[in-house]
Structure formats: structure tokens, C-alpha cells
């Protein structure tokens, strides 16, 4: 009975971990604005976690530079399964305008399985909420499959 209660509660409170993989800061600001009272993702249960070990959803911004790649992978590997990886903006999906640069190791999907892509440069806060809602759904499916 408690397990069921915990499973239901966890589905309503997915914690986010935000990784900046060499982003221009545009997407980071949009992600922070999602958590402000204006868009208030916290009313839907989303909360920024300070440590990857506490997180359910990983939000990656930036084109994954060669400097940040080992740190990104290390942080993601610390997130307990089942986890959901969300790429925010065009950069982690394709490299965007930075693709072909000597210091860009992306896209992120070369290294880990990406569950949700939120396109935009930078995406609107509403689009981020859409993406996070989809990620929560995927997370729930993954928990049930486990």
C-alpha cells in the first residue's frame, strides 16, 4: 500500500536537475523563468534539485562542448533510474550554429538516450512546460515498466 502511495506521489513531484553543457545562457534563463511565479512550474510539482542524485528529470542545455562532455556524462550517470533526459533548445539536439566547431562534442544523443526534445532557440517557457509534462508521462511509463 505504501509503495503505491509513494509511486503516486513521486509521479506528482518530479525533480529537475539542470545541466549547462556550454549553453549561451538563453535556455538557462528560460528554464529559470519556468520556475518563477509567472509560469510557476512548482505548482505542477517540478522543483530544481541541487544534486543529480535527487533528480528524476535531467534538463540539458547547450551544445555539449568537449570540456563539459565528461562532466555531463558523470552527472547523468549519477541520476538514479528510471530517469528522463530532456534536451532544451536546438543546441543539444544538433549543435545549432556551433555544429562543426572543434570544441563541440554534441549532439547529446550520440552519448545517452534522449527522451524528449524541446525545440526553439530559446524555447518559450510554455513549450518547456509542455516538454516537462511529456517527460513526466514518460517517466511514469518507465516506472510502471520496471
Amino acid at each position: 500500500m505504501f509503495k503505491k502511495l509513494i509511486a503516486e506521489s513521486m509521479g506528482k513531484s518530479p525533480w529537475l536537475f539542470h545541466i549547462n553543457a556550454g549553453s549561451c545562457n538563453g535556455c538557462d534563463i528560460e528554464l529559470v523563468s519556468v520556475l518563477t511565479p509567472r509560469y510557476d512550474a512548482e505548482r505542477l510539482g517540478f522543483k530544481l534539485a541541487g544534486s543529480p542524485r535527487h533528480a528524476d528529470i535531467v534538463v540539458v542545455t547547450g551544445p555539449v562542448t568537449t570540456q563539459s562532455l565528461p562532466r555531463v556524462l558523470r552527472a547523468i550517470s549519477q541520476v538514479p533510474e528510471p530517469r528522463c533526459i530532456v534536451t532544451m533548445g536546438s543546441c543539444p539536439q544538433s549543435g545549432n550554429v556551433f555544429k562543426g566547431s572543434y570544441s563541440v562534442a554534441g549532439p547529446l544523443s550520440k552519448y545517452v538516450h534522449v527522451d524528449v526534445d524541446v525545440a526553439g532557440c530559446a524555447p518559450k517557457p510554455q513549450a518547456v512546460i509542455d516538454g516537462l509534462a511529456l517527460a513526466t508521462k514518460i517517466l511514469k511509463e518507465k516506472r510502471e515498466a520496471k
Partner: protein
Amino acid sequence: MDFPFVKEAVKQLFSKTSCAMYPAVPSEAAPHYRGRIVYHPELCINCGMCERVCSGNAITRSSEKVEEGEKITMTFNLGSCTFCATCADFCSRHAIEFTGDYHMVATKEEDLLVSGSFIKKPPVKKPAPPKPAAPAAAPAAGAAPVKPRDDGKPVNDPSKCVYCTLCAKKCPAGALEVDRAAKTWTLDEDKCVGCGTCAEACPKKCILI
């Protein structure tokens, strides 16, 4: 005892929330927001300008031979797009449109591709005009290889030209006149300054100077 903010606190408690309440309340993007790309293949003339100006290499063009001519497919990868709208600005036929749709969330990369295709028909060859009446000094119309002129003025290769009118738009002297319907390219030699802007602007590189 003094409670300084009681009035403010009570007021805020009963006032409307400042939260946008998305997704319960749907929200529209601001006017001129650059969201999902809509491509109109029926307007496109395959000049390739969008592909050249794209900073994120988000636009790819592929062609395959079909019965009626050439099937051109343009694909816009929204996962690689900066939404700068330079492609739409450079499109002389307004075939690329940025809409206010910002819901671009996908689980697969293919979901973020916007593509469209059209069939480009080969130009209908007109029967050669009767020559004998023309004076002998006039150059033979439609001579096979187009050679650059000696006087530094541009010359057009009609076999490559798509009549996109970009050269006429770019010409600082207004010396070029291109009619897309009639497929004519005329140069006002008196106005032309021989700057080469038209040759630079030509997406097909069919203007020689």
C-alpha cells in the same frame, strides 16, 4: 504592536494570481513570434538562397528525377534552427513562413522535421525564331556557351537561370529587369555600373561578368 504589512497581505491573499496558469489557460505567442516553420512548396522556385544563408545548416535540399521533371524536397530541421528568419527574409517568393506555434516538443528527431516537395518541370523549349530577317551583325540568339563580355558588363546564361529576380533586386543601379512570367532577363547597359553585385547575388551562379 504594529503589523506593517497586514493590509497588503490580506489584499494579496484575495487578489487574482499573477501566474499565467499554463497549460490550463492556453497562451498565444506574441505577434511576430518566430515559431514553427511552414513551408509553401508551391511558391518555391528552388533558388537555394535559404540553404545558403542558414546559420545552423538546418535546411537541406534533395532532388530526384521523376517522370514530369525533377522532384525537389526541402527539409527544415527545427532541432537545428535558430529561428533567426534569415531564410524567410532572403526568400524572394515568400515560401517560408514563421508561425506563432511554439509547441515544438518531440520524442523522436523526425517529429521536428518540416518538409515539403514540389516537381520542377523543365523549361519548355520554344521553336527557334526565323533568322534570315535579322541583320548579319546581330549575335546568334541562344549561342551554346555563354561567354563573359569584354566590357565588364554582366551576361546571363538562360540555360541555368531560374528567373528568381534576386539580381534585379540587388542591382544598386536598377539596371536589370527580370520578368518571371515571360522568362526574360534584360540589361540596361547605360545604367549598369559593372559592380558585379548581381553575379554575387545569383543563387545559380549563371551571371558572368
